[in-house]
């Protein structure tokens, strides 16, 4: 093996670079920030971005440095999006694979439960859950994770059912393979493509959901910064101080883009049929 296959895929590399950039920023934010992200300064309210004052991205309506707040918010957004997606993916895939593989009654019970969750718009469901659980960062993770469960369950169930009818599953059975062997060696590897796409979409929508929840005052609580609540508080002043909204918004867009690009690249890489196309 010369270069790892992932690095030969341009799209995936672009996504990976973006994500690593954010990882780097969030690691740095624990040791060093240009300013204290919580320190208010009445003399520095709504400063436009400039290098001379040191506020490269400007300041908000309390005179807090926006760059510092975005950097501090990076780790929050990251942790929320990755843990919420993992939570939803693990439970959802488990349920979906189980339902699809076993079929019958188990399938019916699991999928009706998923349907109930599905019948609420995802933001509304997240707001419900937050209202029940109370406002806390962990609860944001839980709420977004629960919103994701039916999505993963449905995708993996559909993929499993489509695969189950293939003759190679029968062939494996006739060669003495048990249920768990078929699941691990034949079914799961063949459903990775739709799941990776779903995971990369979920990682990015988790950031958007977190932003929306924080925007509504249900997510990360001020004065702690998150990209969402920064956007939310910028709403009042963005007409004459656009930098308060543009930079947090840009931070969200670029990370979402990074996840999507990496997801696309990974899917192409893992599928032998698409591997040598590029």
């Amino acid at each position, binding site marked *: 093996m010369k270069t790892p296959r992932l690095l030969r895929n341009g799209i995936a590399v672009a996504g990976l670079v973006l994500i690593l950039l954010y990882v780097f920023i969030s690691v740095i934010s624990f040791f060093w920030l240009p300013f204290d992200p919580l320190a208010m300064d009445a003399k520095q309210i709504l400063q436009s971005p400039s290098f001379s004052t040191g506020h490269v991205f400007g300041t908000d309506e309390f005179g807090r440095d926006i760059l510092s707040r975005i950097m501090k918010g990076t780790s929050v957004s990251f942790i929320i999006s990755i843990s919420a997606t993992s939570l939803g993916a693990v439970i959802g895939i488990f349920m979906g694979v189980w339902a699809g593989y076993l079929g019958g009654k188990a399938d019916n019970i699991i999928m009706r439960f998923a349907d109930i969750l599905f019948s609420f718009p995802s933001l509304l469901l997240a707001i419900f859950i937050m209202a029940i659980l109370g406002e806390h960062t962990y609860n944001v993770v839980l709420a977004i994770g629960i919103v994701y469960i039916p999505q993963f369950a449905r995708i993996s169930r559909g993929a499993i059912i489509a695969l189950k009818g293939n*003759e190679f599953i029968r062939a*494996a059975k006739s060669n*003495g393979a048990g249920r768990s*062997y078929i699941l691990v060696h034949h079914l799961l590897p*063949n459903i990775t493509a739709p799941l990776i796409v779903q995971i990369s979409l979920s990682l990015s929508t988790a950031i958007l959901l977190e932003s929306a929840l924080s925007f509504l005052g249900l997510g990360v609580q001020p004065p702690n910064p998150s990209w969402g609540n920064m956007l939310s508080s910028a709403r009042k002043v963005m007409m004459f101080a656009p930098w308060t909204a543009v930079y947090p918004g840009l931070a969200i867009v670029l990370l979402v883009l990074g996840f999507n690009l990496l997801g696309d690249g990974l899917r192409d890489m893992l599928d032998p049929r698409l591997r040598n196309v590029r």
Partner: protein
Amino acid sequence: MVDKEILLEVKDLKVHFPIEKGLLIKKNIGSIRAVDGVSFSLRQGESLGLVGESGCGKSTTIMAISRLERITSGQVLFEGQDLSLMKEQELIRARQNFQIIFQDPYSSLDPRMRALDIVSEPLRIFAKKGIITLDDASIEKKALSLLDRCGLSSTFADRYPHEFSGGQRQRIGIARSLSLGPKLILADEPVSALDVSIQSQILNLLKDLQDEFNLTFLFIAHDLAVVEYFCSRVAVMYLGNIVETASSKTLYEHPLHPYTKALLSAVPIPDPIAGKNRKRTILKGDVPSPSQVRPGCPFADRCPQAMEICTKKRPPLVEISNQHEVACFLYHDQEVL
């Protein structure tokens, strides 16, 4: 007691699929009688062809023999042991001895596995279960030699199924079916998905392998020419029943059952003049639904020579002459009735 010559004996095999109705609470409202009382036996080294039109239960018969489909009733005796009664562990051990070649070379290979992994998978499973003792290196060596024997050199071993043609894929499937050293090969239309020019290559390969590994074949096809070439004996199926069995030579020269006659007369002749002048038996109507319970002969309402008794009583499979059995009242003597 057990006839050593006979490798596989199927006795009154029935596979019925329930028809369910209802959204949440399923009610059984009948059954599809896919295989409805099939009996035959296979001697060591023989190849029996199973022919019939689509939906007559050929594939289901094979799937039931290999216990991939639930058997409703009947016996499947392999070397005298009843597969239909075997428990899971016993069955897995028995699976070494009978393997399937599947119909569709596109869905029978896992798209995420290399050719080598596909062929060695059965060996790896059996080695992991401790039924055979082979280390990884010898498994790989064996798989490579099987691929090579089936016409794929080791340069192909690392390729994925989508990089092969249909014929090559079927060769991989054949190599896989041989990996455990089976005695019986259940071939489920192994060539019907292939090009005519590739069909003959695969058939010749199967014939060579049969001699080399002393294999017994149960060979399903709907192409009568393929069966005539490959099989020494043929069983004709209609609507879940065997209606006639004979050596292929006898069957093609002297078909007895009206359905067999109709089937043979439908074989295309590659000569337009001869094709125009021959007498064809054209059947009226469609194959009846296999969900109906019918007391008489399954072919009775389409048969050009149907008699009164045909709709009332089911004709048993009776040996008319040497090794030639037919289930039709036209040929049954009075004392048989």
